[in-house]
């Protein structure tokens, strides 16, 4: 009896020991070993200990001189170093202190090494990133950077890595950052290759989007004439970034008869979010109250926790710069120094081409390339998966790039992807940012940009001598009209890139008479620019930006803040009056009349307390869906995409009897006005129950999602009620939006304001994890503490001082 009691108890005991000492599989998530995790002395609790950060008496042999750091109340480190090398070391250390896990997950994401941590749910993304060859090409990129780097550039990446690793060395079980404990892994030593991968990841987000496969299927389904009608390259209502172009125009039609007309069955890769974009602008002293320029930038990216960006100031004898950085990459990406300010928006040109593989043998080991037979470089690749057998597959590389789509039973559909980012670099591609940090004037800004490669950005500029400028910057393959939109049937001399557009021929504007420059991912130029390009462009934000800036005068920083938070959209201005005019109110009930009146009274602003935006959005969505049933039909079998909202609107205005407004499955031949009425009815049915609820407004309907990188809701801020719309300057859309908002007033010494939806610390236990979110939601800004020296007390004296001591 007693033995049985003992056996039961010891079995329970041992069972419990086992349960607590090993990771637990719960459905498809893995929990860490609970015994360790819950241990208040070593587990997650110890991440909440509120000890002030100190370096004790540690000395850092790699430093030439001491580095003094002041950390302000928002957790922004202000680094005062005696040379660039020490400053970058400190930047690496401090960034790692706050964002180590984020850095690791970002480079793992690029390499395709997330399944090791998160299990099978990350496998699809990993397979895709292995096929694209991110790590394969990052290794090459890193080698080339080492060859091309000169002066300070040579130590840039290695010093940063040393800083990160110096921080990692201080960690033990107890002080491991929270997510390492939650997801049960240990930090990897940081290498320059990881920084290169983080650059690749950003490039993927910004110039990795293409729709060649979809366009090819559309061309095959619709024919050239219909394709050009529905998917034109240019929008005549557009207000391009740089309007002046003295060149002769080239023909607009581009889907020529030479292009491929086959279908492709592949499921396309997951694409970067089309909302990745931004606004930036600069206004000259002619338009400001101060008489000096003001510059603004708000990059639109995923709004994550921790944030994409990390604020920092770096002060050395040769530069004093403040701005936001990308964790993992040294230097400042968007910011200002004592003389200039700069910012970026995405250019969005299509820089990916696809070529059909012309196999030279049945075994698919050789392919034809410009008259020669070449061997495929084949690599067996293994993806480790947490808790499962690894996934093994073959990667195939050609002269032009990896073969990313291939089906065993359809070798005629195998495709090579040539992505600009996978081309060999021709210089140290991070030098632009170092040079901008040090630049003092327009000439030095242009020199800094001349070496910029990927991803292409519209760099806006202003300085305290009064100059403003914008340059569409990057490597752009030279193509003939219409080239690169569709999959190439074969590789010919003519189908290959003919070099890159020379820097001096890139669209740019310098002190225009309008007194402002600005971009919001719209077309770079009018169609008479001498080099062909296509891409996916904004049709609303750029236009309203130029409209509003041209009317503004006596501008102050507050006016720029209001403009960044502006939720008015031209899509409503463009089409709503026509829509409401076409509605047949004949037998409308009171609620329907009410809804229509709400729309007529609306100020076209997507404000969170407003109800009309919900009506407009729902109505437009229904109109769009009813119109494009033809494309939906093609989509059942093939990857395609539907014409732009802007084009649909243009068709309603100019071609309202177009056959596309006819709904296929009905006998009747509908026109635009019929669709509009049918759509209104649908909107009524969707919303009649809720529209008059007090709390039901645009903020509830269109909320922002600020999510932890792992998407765990408890670590995130879901459903943040905000104003904004993807087609307004305040371009919030789900988990995408203004990830940083910055305004810089140029002067003898600049004054700047900034905010982002998150906090400096990546530690979910810290008050600084999400401390800026509230202000960002309200549209408020913090004054950025651009210190002149470590003893600068213009912003108060609430600093935590850290000294990195040399040996």
């Amino acid at each position, binding site marked *: 009896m*007693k*033995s049985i*009691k*003992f056996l039961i*108890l*010891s079995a*329970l*005991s*041992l069972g*419990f*020991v086992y349960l*607590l000492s090993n990771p637990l599989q719960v459905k498809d998530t893995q929990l860490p070993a*609970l*015994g360790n995790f*819950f*241990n*208040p*002395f070593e587990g*997650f*609790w*110890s*991440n*909440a*200990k*509120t000890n002030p950060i100190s370096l004790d008496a540690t000395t850092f042999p790699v430093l030439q001189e001491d580095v003094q750091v002041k950390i302000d109340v928002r957790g922004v480190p202000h680094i005062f170093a005696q040379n660039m090398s020490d400053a970058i070391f400190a930047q690496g250390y401090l960034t790692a202190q706050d964002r180590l896990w984020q850095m690791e997950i970002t480079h793992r994401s690029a390499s395709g090494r997330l399944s090791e941590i998160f299990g099978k749910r990350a496998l699809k993304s990993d397979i895709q990133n292995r096929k694209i060859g991110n790590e394969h090409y990052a290794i090459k990129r890193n080698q080339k950077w080492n060859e091309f780097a000169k002066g300070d550039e040579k130590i840039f990446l290695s010093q940063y890595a040393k800083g990160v690793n110096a921080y990692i060395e201080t960690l033990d079980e107890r002080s491991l950052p*929270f997510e390492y404990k*939650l997801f049960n892994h240990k930090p990897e030593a940081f290498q320059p290759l990881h920084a290169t991968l983080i650059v690749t990841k950003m490039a993927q987000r910004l110039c990795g989007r293409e729709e060649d496969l979809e366009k090819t299927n559309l061309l095959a389904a619709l024919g050239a004439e219909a394709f050009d009608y529905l998917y034109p390259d240019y929008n005549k209502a557009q207000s391009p970034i740089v309007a002046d172009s003295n060149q002769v125009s080239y023909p607009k039609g581009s889907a020529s008869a030479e292009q491929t007309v086959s279908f492709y069955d592949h499921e396309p890769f997951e694409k970067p979010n089309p909302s990745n974009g931004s606004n930036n602008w600069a206004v000259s002293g002619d338009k400001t109250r101060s008489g000096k320029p003001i510059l603004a930038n708000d990059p639109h990216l995923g709004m994550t926790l921790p944030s994409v960006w990390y604020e920092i100031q770096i002060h050395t004898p040769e530069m004093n710069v403040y701005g936001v950085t990308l964790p993992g990459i040294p230097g400042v990406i968007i910011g200002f120094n004592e003389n200039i300010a700069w910012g970026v928006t995405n250019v969005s040109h299509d820089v990916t081409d696809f070529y059909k593989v012309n196999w030279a043998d049945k075994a698919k080991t050789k392919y034809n390339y410009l008259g020669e037979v070449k061997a495929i470089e084949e690599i067996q690749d293994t993806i480790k998966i947490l808790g499962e057998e690894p996934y093994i597959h073959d990667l195939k590389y050609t002269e032009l790039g990896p073969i990313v789509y291939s089906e065993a039973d359809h070798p005629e559909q195998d495709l090579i992807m040539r992505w600009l980012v996978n081309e060999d670099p021709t210089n140290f591609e991070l030098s632009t940012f170092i040079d901008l940090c040090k630049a003092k004037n327009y000439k030095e800004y242009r020199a800094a940009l001349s070496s910029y490669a990927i991803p292409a950005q519209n760099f806006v500029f202003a300085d305290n001598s009064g100059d403003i400028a914008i340059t569409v910057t990057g490597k752009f393959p030279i193509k003939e009209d219409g080239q690169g939109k569709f999959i190439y049937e074969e590789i010919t001399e003519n189908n290959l890139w003919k070099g890159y557009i020379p820097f001096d021929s890139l669209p740019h504007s310098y002190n225009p008479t309008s007194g402002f420059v600005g971009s919001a991912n719209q077309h770079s130029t009018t169609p008479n620019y001498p080099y062909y390009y296509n891409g996916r462009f904004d049709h609303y934000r750029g236009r309203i930006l130029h409209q509003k800036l041209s009317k503004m005068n006596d501008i102050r920083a507050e006016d720029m803040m209001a403009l960044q938070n502006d939720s008015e959209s031209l899509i409503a201005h463009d089409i709503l009056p026509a829509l409401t005019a076409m509605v047949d109110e004949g037998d409308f009930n009171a609620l329907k009349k009410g809804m229509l009146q709400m729309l007529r009274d609306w100020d076209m602003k997507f404000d969170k307390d407003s109800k009309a935006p919900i009506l407009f959005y729902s109505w437009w969505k229904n109109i769009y869906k009813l119109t494009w049933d033809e494309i939906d039909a093609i989509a059942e079998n093939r990857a395609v995409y539907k014409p732009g909202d802007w084009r649909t609107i243009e068709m309603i205005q100019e071609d309202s009897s177009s056959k596309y407004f006819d709904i296929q499955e009905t006998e009747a031949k509908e026109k635009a006005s019929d669709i509009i009425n049918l759509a209104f009815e649908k909107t009524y049915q969707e919303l009649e129950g809720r529209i008059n609820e007090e709390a039901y407004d645009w903020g509830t309907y269109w909320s922002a999602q600020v999510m932890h990188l792992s998407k*765990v*809701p*408890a*670590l995130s801020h879901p459903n943040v009620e905000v104003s904004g719309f993807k087609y307004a300057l305040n371009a919030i859309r789900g988990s995408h939006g203004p990830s940083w908002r910055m305004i810089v007033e140029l002067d003898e010494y600049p004054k700047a304001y900034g905010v982002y939806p998150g906090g400096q610390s990546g530690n*979910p*236990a*810290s*008050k600084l*994890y999400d401390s800026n979110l509230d202000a960002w939601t309200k549209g408020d800004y913090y004054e950025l503490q651009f210190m002149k020296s470590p003893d600068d007390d213009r912003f108060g004296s609430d600093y935590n001082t850290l000294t990195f001591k040399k040996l």
Partner: protein
Amino acid sequence: MAPLGALVGFFIPYRKTISSFAYSFLFSFMTWSGAAAMIAIPNDMILAERVGGILNISGTALILVTGLVAGLFMGLSAASGHSFKQIFKK
């Protein structure tokens, strides 16, 4: 820690195994939840609420769960040790 718990249970002469369990449980529960509370409260329950949220419980409940983990663990170990000794008693 489990062998330690077992030894404690083995050597401390409670009359009943349940007492051995109970006292070990109580002591361990208070140590761990006490330590957790001493961290959580100055942290304004920020982390407690977040991690609790992952498990769908409140921050306070999380502190108690922390104690429970230790309590059950040590309580069972002690009870095993105690019941082992009981086998030899007459």
